[in-house]
C-alpha cells in the first residue's frame, strides 16, 4: 500500500511540495521558538540547582527602592539553623542595560567563593582570595565574548548619578580565573570581591541580597519563615518558593512562544487538508472504482490518511532540518557576542516529529472520510 501512497503524492509535485513546505515552515517555527524556550528552561533549571541549597534574603521593597545593609547578614547568621550567611551585590556589566539576560558583575566576599561556586570548577587560574581588589573570576561566556584568559585585563564601567549628571567610572580588572561552562547564569558572571564592588558601584555597605545557608538538618522552608520573622524589613525566598516563582514566569514565556509556533504549524496543517480535499475530489472516480473492485473502507482511509501523514512527516523532517540549521548558525553568531539563545533537545525533536505527523493525520481525516464514504455508483457515473 505504501508504494501507492508514495505514487499518489508524487503525482502532483508542485501542490504536494507547497503543502509540505507549509508544514515545514510551521515545524521550523516550533523548533526555533521551542529551542528558545528550552534554552531558558534549562538555564533556569541549572541556575536553580546551583543555588538550591540556599535561602535568598531580599530587601522588603519599600517606597525608596531596594536596599539591604550588609550588617543584616550577621543578623541572619545569628538565627538558629543558619550555618552561614553573606551578602552579594549584583549589577549589570553594561550599565545601560536593564539587566535581563546580559552579563552580570557579582560582588562576593572572597572567603565565601567556595560556598557560592559549589561544585563549579575553574578551567583556568584560581578563585578569589581575601585581599584581591580589582581582580575577577569570569564565566565561560564572558571569557569567550571578550576573548579573555587568566591574566588578561578587563574593562568594567560603573555609573554614578550626581546632580542630574552621570559620571562614568572605568576600571581595569585583572582576570584571575575562568569558570567552566555550567549552562547557568554563572556563564555570564564576572565575580569580583564584594568590598571592591561596593566601592566601585558606590553602594556603601549595601548588598543586593543575602544568601543564607541552612544547617544540613534544618528544613529550609521553615528556616526561611523564621528569618522573615526575626530580621526586620526582609523577605525570603526559600529554594522551593524561588523555583515555583521562576517556573510560573517560564510557563508564560513558554506558552507565548509555543502558541505562536503552534499557530504556524496549524496553518501548515490546513494547507495539507486543502491539498488532500482537492486531490480527493479530483480522484472521485478512482475511489469509486477502488470500492467497486472491493476495497474496504479502511483501505481507502489508510491510503488517504497515509498520504496526509507522509506529507506531514516530510514537512516535519524538513522543518527540523531547517530549524536546526538556523538555530545552529544563530547560536554560532550569538556565541561570538556572548549569549546563546537556543537549545534543541531530543525531546523537542520528538515533539516536533510527532506533532507534524499528527497534524498531517488530523488534516487528512476529513478528506479521507469523504473519500471512503464515496458511493461507487455516484463515482462511476461521474464522467
Amino acid at each position, binding site marked *: 500500500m505504501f508504494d501507492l501512497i508514495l505514487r499518489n503524492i508524487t503525482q502532483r509535485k508542485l501542490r504536494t511540495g507547497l503543502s509540505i513546505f507549509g508544514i515545514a515552515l510551521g515545524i521550523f517555527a516550533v523548533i526555533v521558538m521551542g529551542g528558545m524556550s528550552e534554552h531558558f528552561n534549562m538555564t533556569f533549571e541549572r541556575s536553580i540547582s546551583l543555588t538550591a541549597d540556599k535561602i535568598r534574603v531580599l530587601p522588603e521593597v519599600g517606597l525608596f527602592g531596594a536596599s539591604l545593609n550588609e550588617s543584616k547578614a550577621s543578623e541572619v547568621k545569628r538565627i538558629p539553623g543558619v550555618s552561614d550567611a553573606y551578602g552579594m551585590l549584583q549589577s549589570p556589566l553594561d550599565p545601560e542595560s536593564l539587566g535581563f539576560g546580559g552579563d552580570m558583575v557579582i560582588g562576593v566576599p572572597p572567603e565565601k567563593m567556595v560556598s557560592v561556586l559549589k561544585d563549579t570548577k575553574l578551567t583556568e587560574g584560581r578563585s578569589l582570595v581575601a585581599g584581591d581588589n580589582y581582580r575577577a573570576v569570569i564565566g565561560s561566556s564572558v571569557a569567550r565574548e571578550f576573548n579573555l584568559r587568566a591574566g588578561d585585563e578587563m574593562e568594567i564601567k560603573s555609573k554614578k548619578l550626581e546632580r542630574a549628571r552621570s559620571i562614568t567610572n572605568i576600571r581595569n580588572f585583572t582576570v584571575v580565573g575562568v569558570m567552566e561552562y555550567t549552562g547557568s547564569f554563572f556563564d555570564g558572571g564576572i565575580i569580583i570581591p564584594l568590598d571592591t564592588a561596593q566601592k566601585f558601584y558606590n553602594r556603601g555597605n549595601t548588598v543586593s541580597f543575602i544568601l543564607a545557608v541552612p544547617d544540613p538538618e534544618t528544613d529550609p522552608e521553615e528556616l526561611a519563615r523564621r528569618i522573615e520573622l526575626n530580621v526586620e524589613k526582609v523577605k525570603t525566598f526559600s529554594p522551593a518558593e524561588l523555583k515555583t516563582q521562576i517556573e510560573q514566569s517560564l510557563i508564560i514565556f513558554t506558552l507565548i512562544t509555543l502558541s505562536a509556533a503552534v499557530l504556524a504549524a496549524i496553518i501548515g496543517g490546513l494547507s495539507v487538508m486543502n491539498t488532500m480535499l482537492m486531490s480527493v475530489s479530483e480522484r472521485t472516480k478512482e475511489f469509486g472504482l477502488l470500492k467497486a473492485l472491493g476495497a474496504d473502507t479502511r483501505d481507502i482511509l489508510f491510503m488517504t490518511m497515509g498520504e496526509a501523514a507522509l506529507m506531514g512527516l516530510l514537512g516535519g523532517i524538513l522543518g527540523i532540518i531547517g530549524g536546526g540549521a538556523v538555530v545552529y548558525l544563530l547560536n554560532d553568531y550569538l556565541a561570538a557576542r556572548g549569549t546563546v539563545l537556543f537549545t534543541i533537545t531530543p525531546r523537542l525533536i520528538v515533539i516536533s516529529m510527532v506533532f507534524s505527523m499528527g497534524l498531517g493525520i488530523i488534516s487528512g481525516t476529513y478528506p479521507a472520510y469523504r473519500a471512503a464514504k464515496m458511493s461507487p455508483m455516484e463515482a*462511476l457515473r461521474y464522467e
Partner: protein
Amino acid sequence: MDEPVLRVRNLTKTYMQGKIPVHALNDVSFDVEKGEFMSIVGPSGSGKSTLLSMIGLLDKPTSGSVFIDDKEITKAKESEVPKLRREKIGFVFQHFNLIPTLTAFENVDVAMRFARVPKNERKQRAVELLTQMGLADRMKHKPSELSGGEQQRTAIARALSNHPAIILADEPTGEVDTKTRDMIVNLLRKLSEEGHTILVVTHDTAVAQQTGRIITMRDGMIESDKT
C-alpha cells in the same frame, strides 16, 4: 442442470423523482447458470443498468433479492459488501476505468491487494492473466499508452484476478471500433467456454447476437428471454 450461479428474484427498484415514483425495475426474476454467456439489452431507461448495479452490489433494491452462489447478497451488511464485491464480482466498464497513474500490470495487481493476496501470488497471477489477454509486452505501459482494445483487455484481466463467480460487463464495447469490439466479444465468449459466467449489458445488437442468451428489457421489466 447445475445450481444457478446467479438468481434474481422479484427485484424491484423505485426512485423518487421529486414526488413522482419512477419504477426503474419492476419485479424482475431470472436465473443464470455457471459458464453462461448472456446479454441484457434494451433501450435507455429500460432498467438494464439499474439491474446490473443491484447484482454488482453498487446499489440496493427497494425489494426482492439477488443470490450469488446461494448467498443472498442483497441482505449483506454494509461491512460485508467490499468482501462480496471482491470475491463474487468482476466488473468491466464502458470507460475501462483503469487508474491512469498505474501501469497495466499494477492495475491488475491493485485489485488483488484488497483481497490481501500475497505479493508473489499477485505478480504471478497478473502476469498470467495479462499474457492470456495477449498483453505480455504491454504490462509496463500506462493506460494512456494503450489502445482502447488493450485497455479493455487490461480491465478484463483485472476483473478476472480474484476468481469472481460472475463477470458483469457494462457496455464493454461502447468505446471501441468494430474490429476491437469483435475481438473483445470473442475473448468474453472464450472465457465463458472456460467456465466463467459472463453477463453483458449492451444496446449493440451485434454484440448481443453473439451471446448464448439475450434478455430484453423494457420499462423495468423483462420483455423477452431467448436462448
